[in-house]
């Protein structure tokens, strides 16, 4: 364990007290969230424990190919998870896969080229995981909104097509709103960081006994990298996915009812 912190399994188990309180509140208020909470606790325990061992293996081996395989798997799961939020969008899988890959490749590539992090498993695994997770959330929210925009705005979109506008011109106001939806949460949390909440990396470093200034610097890098990743992911996913709503003849596949 790191010198500043030593966590036993008993202490981890003790933190379940709070989950027990949450479950009690859910039962008392008939919110019926007990099952969901139980599944969430179980999944987080199994998934994190498993990934902990996998990461340990990758760190011990040091192979960048293993890092790439782990990140590719994360992108795959991220795509599937985001797809379930984009059920109103026709054929969202490929746009999501490209968006997550583009976000991960650009941001990780950039921090390596700029020399912010060295190309080692110790940096690439946690940073890559955070980047892909945030990119997934951003594109899932953006495509979810895009689906709603096309469902509710079909009349306006077709009225614009009727003027001889291209599919892109007709979709543009809706693309903008979707892009905004996908990135606004991260922009807001970046704005309020340090005032309302302390981000995870910084907290982790402080708990592990790091110098606060170092912790802050690393956190700033991560915040800005994540902001870029979210924007790239939302932009690429919406820019590719909107085409699925239109035919080659610039018609809506699912026109508004007459």
């Amino acid at each position: 364990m790191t010198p500043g912190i030593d966590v036993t399994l008993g202490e981890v188990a003790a933190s379940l007290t709070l989950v027990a309180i949450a479950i009690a509140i859910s039962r008392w208020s008939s919110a019926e969230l007990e099952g969901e909470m139980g599944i969430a606790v179980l999944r987080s325990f199994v998934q994190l424990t498993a990934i902990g061992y996998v990461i340990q293996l990758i760190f011990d081996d040091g192979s960048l190919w293993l890092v790439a395989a782990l990140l590719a798997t994360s992108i795959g799961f991220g795509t599937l998870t985001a797809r379930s939020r984009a059920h109103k969008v026709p054929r969202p899988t490929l746009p999501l896969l490209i968006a997550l890959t583009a976000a991960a490749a650009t941001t990780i590539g950039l921090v390596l080229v700029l020399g912010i992090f060295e190309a080692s498993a110790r940096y690439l695994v946690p940073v890559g995981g955070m980047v892909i997770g945030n990119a997934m959330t951003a594109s899932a929210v953006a495509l979810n909104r895009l689906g709603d925009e096309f469902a509710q705005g079909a009349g306006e979109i077709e009225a614009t097509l009727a003027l001889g506008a291209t599919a892109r011109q007709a979709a543009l106001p809706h693309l903008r709103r979707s892009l905004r939806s996908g990135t606004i949460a991260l922009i807001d949390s970046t704005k309020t960081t340090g005032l309302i909440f302390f981000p995870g990396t910084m907290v982790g470093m402080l708990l592990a006994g790091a110098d606060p200034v170092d912790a802050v610097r690393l956190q700033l890098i991560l915040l800005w990298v994540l902001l870029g990743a979210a924007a790239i992911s939302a932009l690429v996913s919406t820019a590719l996915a909107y085409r699925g709503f239109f035919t080659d003849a610039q018609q809506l596949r699912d026109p508004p009812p007459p």
Partner: protein
Amino acid sequence: MLFELEGVVLARGGRRVLDGFDCRIRAGVSALVGPSGSGKSTVLRLLDRLSDPDAGTVRYRGTDVRLRDPLELRREVCLVPQLPALLAGTIADNIAFAADLAERQPDHDALLGHAGLDPAYGGRDVSQLSVGEKQRAMLARALALEPRVLLLDEPTSALDPGARSAIEATIARLADELDVSIVLVTHDLEQARRLAAWIVRVEAGRAAGEGEAEELLLT
């Protein structure tokens, strides 16, 4: 003939909305008349390729519309939908958007005038307009393309009788003053008679008759 439809079939959600639709639409002011759900709005959407038929042919001035570039066709044959759907911003923004698409220099005052709106309306935000004003703004925006044909889908269905008469007067004036043909969809036979010289009657996805308004409405 301005438009000819031959053996047009179009299904939607497993239902045949048009089932062997044949008709001719003449230049000038024509009307597609029929009850709600008869398929007349669907015909209108086929005329500027907002949809393509599953079978059959739609011809505009003798050419299959599928051989035309859809964007060019829609700027020449412009559809104004039943429900006003303007872009966010002012009426002038909407007119400028359409004029840019057709690479025209819009005369805002003249366009507003043709649509029966005072020139002062140009700066009005579309969210502050009544339904009738929005309908007129849609008309002004369509005219900014300088189309050869206007397709008007139930242009007065959402209006009170006073506003309806005013829009009808505007449509009649447009046909007289501008070199533009108008195809009007309406469920109102009387309105078709007041405005159109050529009428196609639409019933259950088929054309039940077509001809000069006076002759057809006597039968």
